[in-house]
């Protein structure tokens, strides 16, 4: 086998050193009863060439048409990924030995700083699995801080985030209450229930609408304000930290990660310094070595599962370190101006398409609030039929099931990134007109 370095001669000599007669003797501690039940998969070994061919055939069975038009969204977007060669970070483990992990740790520290800058928060961790688990962990943090067994969540949270939040809260015996949406597509904060540990809102939300967070925090009493957000939108929008958010979470995939059928993703998690001891996951910190020189190491580890055991803030160990590195390189490629320009392009293209679609007979925008690069269009016929009509012309939009979860039965959601050209958007308008 290509990934094994020893020969039969080596193995024989090593068995002699160990003092065992055979390979089988290495497994004498597993009972015959157990071993005899083991069945092979019936899978023959294959050459690298054959496996490469099989994988290419499977990849080709996915229809990813470079001439097609993706308007898919819902947290994962088809953004342009600049070509910047990255050297090999990927075969290292968690930086438990900081002296030989300064590369990973420096990038973690850079990432944390960038996320603080984007979100307007004071401390960020080195990543979570994805946006959904970051939301769930934010709810658990709030429960630890306030000890209240209830969170309140906006209807505008992505339904696939909500499902994960519900699962985590069910296990932790935290009740989840929902706030409805207004005509604008914003969270209706008129009646926030008392006694919640957190109020969770998303901006831009699942309807695409940008929430106005400026007056929210004051209305919540003690409850923590948790904001789920989109990192590219933050190139343009008021950072949630400036609006009093206590925890900011989000999905980092737009920052230079490919869609990869939904994983790996990059959970963003940032909060206030006062909650440092409650943060889940790894954090890199600056320190000095014995010569007094700067260096990085893992910080505040007493929160973590390998030290605090069952009293840890979370069980997370492996996170999305390599994805965080990608996002860091991506942001350093763009810089603040590039990011703001990118956000502007997204806004312009999404609004161009929205304006043209809303002018079609029988079509209108479902919500009146401002939006970033995603919006919901009311269509005159069954949205699933319209979607299929678009698909036959190589135009992909989200499955309307995700809007049905939000109570919208006559709409389709469109996400428009910088990759879409005017010519493509005009084709979309034409196709929607035909399909409607």
């Amino acid at each position, binding site marked *: 086998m290509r990934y094994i370095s020893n020969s039969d001669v080596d193995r024989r000599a090593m068995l002699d050193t160990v003092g065992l007669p055979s390979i089988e003797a290495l497994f004498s501690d597993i009972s015959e009863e157990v071993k005899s039940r083991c069945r092979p998969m019936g899978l023959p070994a294959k050459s690298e060439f054959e496996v490469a061919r099989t994988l290419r055939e499977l990849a080709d069975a996915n229809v990813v048409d470079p001439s097609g038009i993706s308007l898919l969204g819902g947290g994962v977007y088809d953004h342009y990924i600049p070509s910047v060669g990255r050297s090999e970070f990927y075969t290292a483990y968690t930086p438990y030995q900081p002296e030989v992990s300064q590369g990973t740790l420096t990038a973690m520290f850079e990432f944390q700083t960038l996320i603080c800058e984007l979100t307007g928060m004071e401390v960020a961790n080195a990543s979570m699995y994805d946006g959904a688990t970051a939301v769930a962990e934010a709810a658990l943090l709030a429960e630890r801080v306030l000890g209240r067994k209830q969170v309140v969540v906006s209807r505008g949270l992505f339904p696939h985030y909500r499902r994960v939040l519900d699962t985590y809260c069910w296990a932790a015996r935290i009740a989840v209450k929902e706030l409805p949406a207004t005509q604008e597509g914003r969270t209706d904060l008129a009646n926030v229930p008392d006694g919640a540990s957190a109020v969770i809102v998303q901006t831009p939300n699942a309807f695409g609408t940008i929430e106005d967070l400026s007056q929210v925090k004051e209305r919540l009493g003690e409850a923590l304000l948790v904001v789920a957000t989109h990192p590219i939108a933050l190139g343009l929008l008021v950072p949630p930290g400036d609006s009093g958010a206590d925890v900011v979470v989000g999905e980092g995939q737009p920052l230079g990660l490919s869609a990869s059928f939904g994983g790996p993703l990059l959970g963003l998690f940032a909060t206030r310094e006062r909650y440092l001891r409650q943060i889940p996951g790894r954090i890199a910190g600056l320190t000095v070595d014995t010569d007094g020189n700067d260096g990085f190491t893992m910080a505040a580890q007493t929160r973590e599962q390998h030290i605090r055991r069952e009293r840890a803030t979370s069980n997370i160990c492996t996170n999305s370190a390599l994805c965080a590195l990608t996002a860091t390189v991506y942001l350093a490629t763009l810089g603040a101006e590039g990011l703001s320009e990118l956000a502007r392009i997204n806004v312009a293209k999404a609004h161009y398409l929205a304006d043209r679609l809303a002018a079609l007979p029988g079509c209108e925008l479902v919500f009146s609030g401002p939006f970033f690069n995603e919006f919901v269009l009311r269509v005159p016929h069954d949205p699933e039929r319209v979607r299929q009509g678009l698909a036959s012309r190589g135009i*992909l939009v989200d499955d309307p099931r995700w809007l049905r979860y939000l109570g919208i039965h006559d709409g389709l959601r469109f996400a428009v990134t910088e990759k879409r050209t005017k010519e493509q958007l005009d084709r979309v308008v034409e196709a929607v007109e035909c399909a409607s």
Partner: protein
Amino acid sequence: MKTIFDFRTGDPSGGVFPPIDVPESTSAIPASLRRERPPRIPSLSEPDLVRHYTRLSKLNFGVDDGFYPLGSCTMKYNPKLNEDAARLAGFSDAHPLADASVVQGALAVMHHMATMLSEIAGLPGVTLQPAAGAHGELTGMFLARRYFEKRGDTGRSRILLPDSAHGTNPASAALAGFTVTEIPSDGSGMVDVNALASTLDDTVAAIMLTVPNTLGIFEERILEITARVREAGGLCYFDGANLNAFIGRARPGDMGADIFHFNLHKTLSTPHGGGGPGAGPVAVSERLAPYLPVPRVERGSEGYLLNWEAPDTIGAVHSFYGNFAVILKAYAYLLQLGDQGLLAVSENAVLNANYLQARLKESYRLPYDRLCKHEFVLSGKGLANGISALDVAKRLIDYGMHPPTIYFPLIVPEALMIEPTECESRATLDAFVDAMKRIAEEAKTAPEQLRGAPHRAPVRRLDQTRAARQPILRYPFDETP
């Protein structure tokens, strides 16, 4: 240590995106929603950027750099074919919300992978959703909670955890709302079955066993342990971090496991990425299958589909379907290995560990001197001049090797937990033995050399206490303009 924030950036970005080709409305986003001060994100020129990260990559030690015997982490070689597979545009550009009809290749990979993992585990149900090992543990604990909830058996609040179990287990149990009862090991490093029997009652939800345990020892009475827990109405969870020890030779399902999680980034060769992403699929017995997360990949008359309908499901633990690209890499690895390859993996992993153990016990204390599986634990206690496991670890860096896991498991003082994996040659193992023996000798003759180690790393020994007491967790921008 230079960061991107220390660069003097000249001409800002530009040139990445084309000019806007549609009319732009300035009123689209009201001024009140726009940020006033830009984030402090530097824009590095491409040469500066590439050199910065190339330099950083050289400050890292990965499996591609050398021997990496980090116990319980299975730092095996990561085949390059895996990376090629994940970069195929058909996979990397597939969107999770696309219609099933346009992602048949991805769904086929997931379906086939779930089938293979089910066979390796000897358990019928599989979810690919968990994004890491600890996430798999948590999912398993959620499944246990749902199982008892549906049976109306709500008094089961305790998880039994041997003191030789994996480090993430207690936190995973607690996060799922359980309390933890520790079970001591006996003198041979295995679960004390009498202690286990005495605590089994109708408040026990499950036992979380690490097989083999973190001492690298296989529980010889595994069938008795699982039978007793089952008789008491509890479930048996097997932590799969150490699957490399027996893959292809024994199956958790045949040993009484109800729940088993895989670490694809350990056993199935996907890279650790400096701490992630991984993947932690979970396999379960028939009685837990109804509670698995949704959606599930199924094969219908018109191809593969995602089924969201499962009335008793725990819901979901990931935004979409798990870390697909990681699953894909593991899939490439399994296809190459086949059954014969899996046998070769466990054979060589266990032989390499026993070989190192036999050679190192001359120079270091071996608290449990017996047949080991894929790893073993030495103790640094008793080294000359009070030299610690930490000193040994840091000195190994000077010899060009990554240190083993240290101070874990907690039941061995000054633990050095060594896992060579199947990939290493006898020559590499011998070089490690030489280094370890030299260090034991240096403990007698040059202890200051060890306490001052590392001497040949990019930085000297770092002050961890300072990082904990005076945390600096983001770049200290000069706040005065």
